[in-house]
């Protein structure tokens, strides 16, 4: 369970998040929606410990999140990952990064780790690219490599920041089917997304954020009123057929 208590965050006196209180119970498949600049990525980065807390607290399984993160890992798929396209790494080596916490400094990956990495690559459908250089992969393939890295540690929690970026429509659909299967298998998932149709189909819990938490309710309850409250007048619902 992830608990966020009275969380506020500002950058140069601009309020990014204000008094956020939220509980993400185990087994939930939650979606975080909101307009650009609503603080979605900031909230995720605070949970993951990339940003320091200013006001409020975050607990994971009842333990302050930074303490918890020292001993455990959370699967994380970032929106953009900065790296040198010429970096001499294969897809397999990047997936193995997700297992570093399980090894002591100075120790090497063993065949069991490589097997687990290969299983994660198989799960995301790119096992055949295991030995390919990162620089040779397309945006969609890279996204799957990073997703495999998020899955390889078999963490109880999975956090995704706009996973549909770089994926085509069938790719988005197959990704969410995979996420739903992982959720059914017990993983607690929190994903940022703009695709309300796909969220309402697959997610069980909706978090609407626009600096403040506007509502958090079952995904089936997505309706024009909630969207209006979160996004303002700039958005209207359009049915999309995948």
């Amino acid at each position: 369970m992830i608990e966020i208590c009275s969380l506020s965050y500002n950058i140069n006196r601009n309020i990014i998040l204000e008094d956020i209180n939220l509980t993400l119970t185990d087994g939930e498949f939650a979606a975080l929606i909101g307009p650009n600049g609503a603080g979605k990525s900031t909230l995720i980065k605070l949970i993951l410990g990339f940003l320091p807390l200013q006001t409020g607290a975050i607990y994971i399984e009842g333990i302050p999140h930074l303490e918890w993160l020292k001993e455990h890992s959370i699967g994380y798929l970032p929106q953009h990952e900065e790296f040198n396209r010429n970096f001499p790494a294969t897809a397999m080596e990047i997936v193995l990064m997700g297992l570093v916490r399980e090894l002591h400094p100075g120790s090497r990956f063993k065949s069991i780790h490589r097997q687990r990495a290969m299983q994660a690559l198989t799960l995301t459908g790119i096992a055949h690219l295991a030995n390919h250089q990162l620089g040779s992969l397309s945006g969609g393939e890279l996204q799957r490599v990073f997703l495999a890295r998020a899955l390889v540690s078999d963490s109880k929690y999975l956090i995704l920041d706009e996973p549909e970026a770089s994926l085509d429509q069938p790719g988005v659909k197959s990704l969410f089917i995979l996420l739903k299967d992982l959720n059914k298998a017990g993983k607690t998932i929190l994903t940022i997304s703009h695709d309300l149709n796909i969220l309402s189909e697959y997610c069980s819990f909706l978090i609407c954020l626009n600096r403040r938490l506007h509502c958090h309710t079952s995904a089936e309850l997505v309706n024009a009123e909630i969207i209006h409250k979160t996004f303002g007048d700039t958005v209207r619902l359009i049915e999309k057929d995948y």
Partner: protein
Amino acid sequence: MYNFIYQAILAALLSSFSLALFSPLVTLRQVSYMGEALSHIAFAGIALALLLELNLQLTTLIFVVIVALAISWLSQKHKLQEANTITIFLSVSMALGIILISLKKGYSFDLESYLFGNVLMVSPSEIYQLIVLALLDIFFISFFYKELFYLSYNAEMAKFYGVPVKLVNTIFMILLAANIVITLRAAGIILVSAQLILPAVTAFNLVKRLDYSILCSAFIAILAASGGFALSWWLDLPTGANIVLLEFVFYLISLLFMTRPKTA
């Protein structure tokens, strides 16, 4: 006579080898500019040691390590762009070095041998230092290979996935400073940065794995050091400059054999 020559060959080989081991990591982490800056910052350390009549190498090493860690700390804590921080320290250190040297009135300082390096000036005790440095480099890179790999890939994600980024980065910076200071007499302030970059960019044209590129980089450096020393022996040319020019020739040749990433 022969001892003197063996000593000079060893100095050229060991200094090129040590710098080449660090070369792929420095290049991938995009801190090659830091390498160049630290070699110039060492000038202020040398001047300080001369003025205060302290142990030259130890004073320079402590000075450069402190500045290297300060640059790293300032860049991270105050979000200053690393290139800007480095430029500030480089210029200030050079200015400080010039002032300190001019304060030491009546002292004739062999600036040229520090600027361009002179393997013939390397003493037996400095050879031992170069041997210890090479062994430390090998141990550090072998032991922390996994950590260095992910730190070079993306430091923020490496930290998230449990790499002890602060520890490895601090040791990296201290060893980088040590490599620059200890190889300075053989490689020279001006030329040391070339030996930190050229072997790696050549290696990356030939191989597409970090471990192979470290080995390839070291091999290129040994080849260039041997060739550079031979040329200086036959043609009476400065060894450091020969090594850098040969490394550049190897780089040009490597462009012909450049490997492309596998396509998906």
